[in-house]
């Protein structure tokens, strides 16, 4: 989930960079076993012929209240690592990338009316799209739960 910050022209003019340092590392986010994770903070759950995709608890926690979710139409295709939608919080717009390639078979239309589900239930009711994977071996390139937890800790600690 590439956070595309809408830095203002002032910010640009002043060369304000996207830097901050939460001093207290946030290690309280939930990471579920059995899912695969992308370094851009999306999760994917592969069951049978369909893979469900959403953003992680860690991602929603950093974003704050989600006020709008921009999702694609079913039927289109997505490529691994490319953006399929966007999440808007009060102040930031973030692209959401697909962890795997495939055809979009379903989108979570509930998020149109209730974008806050992404915050309250990131792994369940806040799912975003379902994909028919084109190449299931892509899943092997993603993090497991333990690796992702470590990745988040390192990322927070580094900043």
């Amino acid at each position, binding site marked *: *989930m*590439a*956070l595309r*910050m*809408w*830095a*203002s*022209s*002032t*910010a640009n*003019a*002043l060369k*304000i*960079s*996207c*830097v*901050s*340092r*939460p*001093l*207290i590392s946030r290690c309280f986010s939930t990471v579920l076993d059995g899912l695969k994770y992308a*370094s*851009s*903070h999306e999760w994917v759950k592969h069951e049978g012929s369909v893979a469900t995709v959403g953003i992680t608890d860690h*991602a929603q926690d*950093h*974003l*704050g*209240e989600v*006020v*709008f979710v*921009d999702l694609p139409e079913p039927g289109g295709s997505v490529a691994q690592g490319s953006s399929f939608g*966007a999440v*808007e*919080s*009060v*102040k*930031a*717009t*973030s692209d959401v990338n697909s962890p795997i390639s495939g055809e979009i078979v379903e989108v979570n239309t509930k998020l149109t009316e209730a974008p806050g589900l992404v915050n309250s239930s990131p792994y369940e009711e806040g799912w975003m799209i379902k994909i028919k994977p084109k190449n299931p071996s892509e899943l092997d390139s993603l993090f497991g739960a333990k690796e992702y937890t470590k990745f988040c800790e390192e*990322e*927070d600690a*580094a*900043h």
Partner: protein
Amino acid sequence: MRGSLWQLGQSITRRLASGDKKAVAHRYFATEAELKKTALYDFHVANGGKMVPFAGWSMPIQYKDSIMDSTLNCRENGSLFDVSHMCGLSLKGKDAIPFLEKLVIADVAGLAPGTGTLTVFTNEKGGAIDDSVITKVKDDHIYLVVNAGCRDKDLAHIEAHMKAFKAKGGDVSWHIHDERSLLALQGPLAAPVLQHLTKEDLSKLYFGEFCMLDIHGSHCFLTRTGYTGEDGFEISVPSEKALDLAKAILEKSEGKIRLTGLGARDSLRLEAGLCLYGNDMEQHTTPIEAGLTWAVGKRRRAEGGFLGAEVILKQIQEGPPIRRVGFFSTGPPPRSHSEIQDEQGNNIGEVTSGGFSPCLKKNIAMGYVKSGLHKAGTNVKIVIRGKPNEGVVTKMPFVPTKYYKPS
């Protein structure tokens, strides 16, 4: 404030923005070391402030409360902001007023002592160099606060003109209040809480008024003003006493007034329909286009005598080509630079600030459209990620302001 940005301090952002972790770390520390810190820096960090670089300063974008909660709490109870990054300045001398009047659109001479106004520093083309709240302390003393992000260019501009003015025998000098910190106390509890800390009767200090007084044992400059649309104050306090004062305010409010960061400050000012310099007003924007015609004093309209007066007075007469307006919209929240189209899909302007209003629970934005399409109720399209969304021109402020004025 005025300055800007919504870098909510996400590690995610940084990582993705750059790729090479080592390079990020290197750049990060280099930047961090150069950032200026206010007297309250340690206090912010101790209170969970997410510190971000802002106009050369390390400032809290938010604390533990979310931006949504902080925004709502300001309107319900109150907020305390550290805005010490902004630059307080005193102009002194018997010619301080005629000097300043060459640079701003306000009728400074016409201000009663102890009152102030929002004004704009203009350039030769009538564009805005900065916006600023100026106060006439007395006839030979003007106190003003300029944006942190504009400090260097503003000071250079003022200094250059001051040199020329003094060379002709004018009596004016300045003092930059770097020995002071600036706190903004905003919201319905601002006055009752501050009243606990001073003997002066704050019920007699109305919106836009200024006084020097003792607050919690320190000599402070107090302006009844702010950047949220709420009643409130900006308190200039000697820096060595700033922490004491901040703690006393929070304590007297029994936890209801909360430390509030720049993120909520931006939501609040947007809801109040106030310009953020650098977004909603820039070098090429005139105060007339920005909807600040009211800030051009009556006498100034007749006499001119400020930089860019020809352009500005002509625009007052004939109307500006573009105008700043507000919008409600559906779909994703509009952001700075979102394109605005008419119903037929023709480009008519651009959004300069926008977001989701925590108080109204819907999208609000401001931006510039061609004159003629600026009337409230005009339907527009706002293009976000290539898709047009319904929008309608709306009067500002979006949330009613609650300034303390004589009834």
